[in-house]
């Protein structure tokens, strides 16, 4: 292994190179679909932020993605693969829907109560993974996958079974919740409460992972679980905690999806945002601020999908494909450290060039 500490110039160069490579890939991909790839990029921007309604929609999509990234940052920190995040989001949505559909749904307190129920349900779903892992040695990936299936089955059962719309047999979702149960927007503006939740949560997590004892121990667990006994730390306890916390945050994401985006329970309530979150967090090398920025960009792409189809006759799956390309390119670049290698190469070339130039002048 070659150990190097990169200078600021090298780091800056490597970011620039990453950006250039990814943009090139995007442009090449788009030019295969459309005459002018830049039109597509501009129309994605327009589709995502072109009007108030579009920005509103983008922000609504951004919230659950950002939250699932936050949840995953916790479990990745403790060295765990929380594949069960999709199930945790679904359970959170079920919890929130249960409250919103009940008598409480009619009261002003409903959003608060239903989000709390979402947090609780998600946390329980997460804890199951953690407890299975620590007590029965079931790998968290298997437990998570299994629980995802259970969650997906449960939501469909509820929609076509106990919670079905009267006289309708379809999987298109439950009845719309009463207005009081919706997560309110402040004034006539943006989904501020939801954004506020994201902001506060990220600040909290940032502080927790950086300064708190709990965050430090989580990092230690992720770094070397075998050393834990020497510090009289019960590693199992922290694994369970991290799953509980991640599940709670994922449940919050699910709850917000239910009472703020769909205003009802639908089978695809998780939107695949859990798995997208895994990609984002991994690609951001588990840095909170990077995942926040990437979540924002991706929510824009997803939000622009329908508009692309209507106005440019580009299929709405194109933004998803685009994301896949971006992430694949990004993962490839960062894991092969292509960007750093090229940065060194460029610096070497410039050095050679300048020395030659100086030699010529002399």
């Amino acid at each position, binding site marked *: 292994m070659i150990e190097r500490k990169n200078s600021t110039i090298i780091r800056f160069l490597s970011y620039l190179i990453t950006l250039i490579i990814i943009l090139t890939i995007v442009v090449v991909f788009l030019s295969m679909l459309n005459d002018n790839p830049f039109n597509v990029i501009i129309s994605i921007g327009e589709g995502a932020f072109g009007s108030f309604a579009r920005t509103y929609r983008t922000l609504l999509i951004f919230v659950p993605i950002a939250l699932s990234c936050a949840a995953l940052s916790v479990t990745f920190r403790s060295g765990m693969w929380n594949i069960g995040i999709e199930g945790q989001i679904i359970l959170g949505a079920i919890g929130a829907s249960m409250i919103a559909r009940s008598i409480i749904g009619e009261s002003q307190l409903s959003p608060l109560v239903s989000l709390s129920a979402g947090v609780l349900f998600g946390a329980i779903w997460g804890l199951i993974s953690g407890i299975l892992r620590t007590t029965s040695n079931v790998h968290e990936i298997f437990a998570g996958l299994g629980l995802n299936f259970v969650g997906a089955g449960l939501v469909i059962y509820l929609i076509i079974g106990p919670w079905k719309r009267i006289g309708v047999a379809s999987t298109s979702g439950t009845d719309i919740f009463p207005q009081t149960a919706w997560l309110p927007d402040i004034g006539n503006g943006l989904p501020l409460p939801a954004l506020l939740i994201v902001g506060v949560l990220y600040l909290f997590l940032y502080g927790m992972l950086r300064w708190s004892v709990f965050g430090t121990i989580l*990092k230690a667990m992720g770094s*070397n679980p075998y050393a834990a006994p020497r510090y009289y730390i019960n590693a199992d306890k922290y694994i369970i905690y991290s799953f509980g916390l991640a599940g709670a945050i994922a449940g919050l994401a699910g709850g917000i999806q239910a009472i703020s985006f769909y205003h009802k329970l639908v089978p695809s309530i998780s939107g695949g945002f859990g798995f997208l979150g895994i990609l984002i967090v991994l690609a951001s090398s588990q840095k909170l601020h990077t995942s926040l920025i990437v979540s924002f960009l991706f929510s824009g792409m997803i939000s622009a999908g329908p508009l692309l189809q209507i106005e440019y006759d580009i299929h709405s799956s194109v933004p998803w494909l685009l994301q896949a390309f971006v992430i694949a390119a990004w993962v490839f670049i960062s894991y092969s450290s292509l960007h750093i290698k090229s940065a060194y190469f460029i610096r070497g070339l410039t050095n050679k060039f300048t020395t030659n130039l100086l030699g010529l002048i002399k």
Partner: protein
Amino acid sequence: MSIEFSGITKIYGDVTANDDISFIIESGTIHAILGENGAGKTTLIKILTGQLEADSGKIIIDGDEIKNNAFLTKRNRVGVLGQDPLDFKNFTVRESFFAGLGKDKYWINNKNTDASIINHASNYGFVINPETKISDLSIGKRQELEFLRLLYNETQIIVLDEPTSGLTDDQKMSINLATKEAVKNGATVIIVSHKLMEVIENCDRATILKSGKFAGTFDMPCDPNLLTKAMFQNLSRGPQVKSKHHLNNENIRIDIPDYFFTKNTHKNHNEPINLQKGSIVAIAGLQGSGTEEFIRSCFEESNNYPKIKLFQKKTREIQKFQKAYVPSDRIEKGLFKDVTILEHFAILYYKNKPFVNWKSLSKKAEKHLTKLRVKGNLNNYPTDLSGGNQQRLMLSMLPNQSSLLLLEDPTRGLDIQSALDLWNIIMERVQTDILVVFNSSDTDEIEKYADYIVCFYDGKIRCHHPQSSNDGKNFINHISGLIESK
């Protein structure tokens, strides 16, 4: 091949590992590189082998400057024999030799290969069987094999990085003889070591590094005091007296499960061991004889070994939180790679509190580090430190009070000064009424410090007695299996 180091400098963060080091290693000699832990030996070797890039300076081999690790890309130029064998456990001896040969052969011709391997080994006085699986060989045998492989490939520069740490005297002897033979055949050998006497006996010259700087090259043999003076600023004395302060009559009992006994265990030796508080117990045995498992079983339950129970005042079992355990695998089991030293202390002192008072913690941690002479910054990661510093760091993180201190091979890979420091610290802790249990294959260490010796042979306990008894003085014969069971 002659090797010239010219102005080699390597800096890690705040630590200057190599500071403008220049010296020459003559072709066809055995050259030792000596130095305390953290003196920069390993860094220098890694720069030579191309694992690290020097910040400045150059390496000149046979008059040519080495650039961009080009030297390494050529097979059979530099070979390293490290502390632990680096081989493929599921290979046979033959396959292991073949794997090192390179791209020019595609099929293994058993007959020819076998003949040439056996012949090659016998030239250096070794006997090998090409059919044997590597996993069936002892560590010592595997080291021999690695060494033979380097010679078989006609490696021109051989670096021996403390390869004899865990070997028996016989094995050391044969490796040393083979080294001399290799030099006769034209190889240049660099030995990295802490063991002065071995260096003086076997090497032609020795270069000494002191805290990253060149501190002189000496022709061998020479006065060992000359070398120690150059290596250490002021060699502090090791603890001279044994712990003979058994003022406290409180008894400690060790209940050993049957797992650790065989029919070869001496009569009546499968009964609990009774000790006095403040004793130092050595679990003596050669490398791989089961002593490490014993230490681990004292600390925690595992699937592989039954737990050893220790009792205080006859009935009160010593609980896990009253035990302190220092594993020999510092990075693997003792420290967290991605966690700074300061954060290690935070975990230790604040694990039951929600927040850390970082300011007061820094002060406290700084005090602990200076007390145990850990060279390093609080913001360093454990992997930035040298082996000796890692070991002292782990000791500095021990709780102030514990009933039982378990040390797994505490001085493995440490130089004389670090080992003395370590024992000074341990002796101090014994004063505060704890029981120390350590395992070691270093007979000098056991003789010097242990009050009670448990002898291991071939994975099981042979016998145990106080060091002062007759059998205790003969413990070397027990651990080497020379005295058969009665």
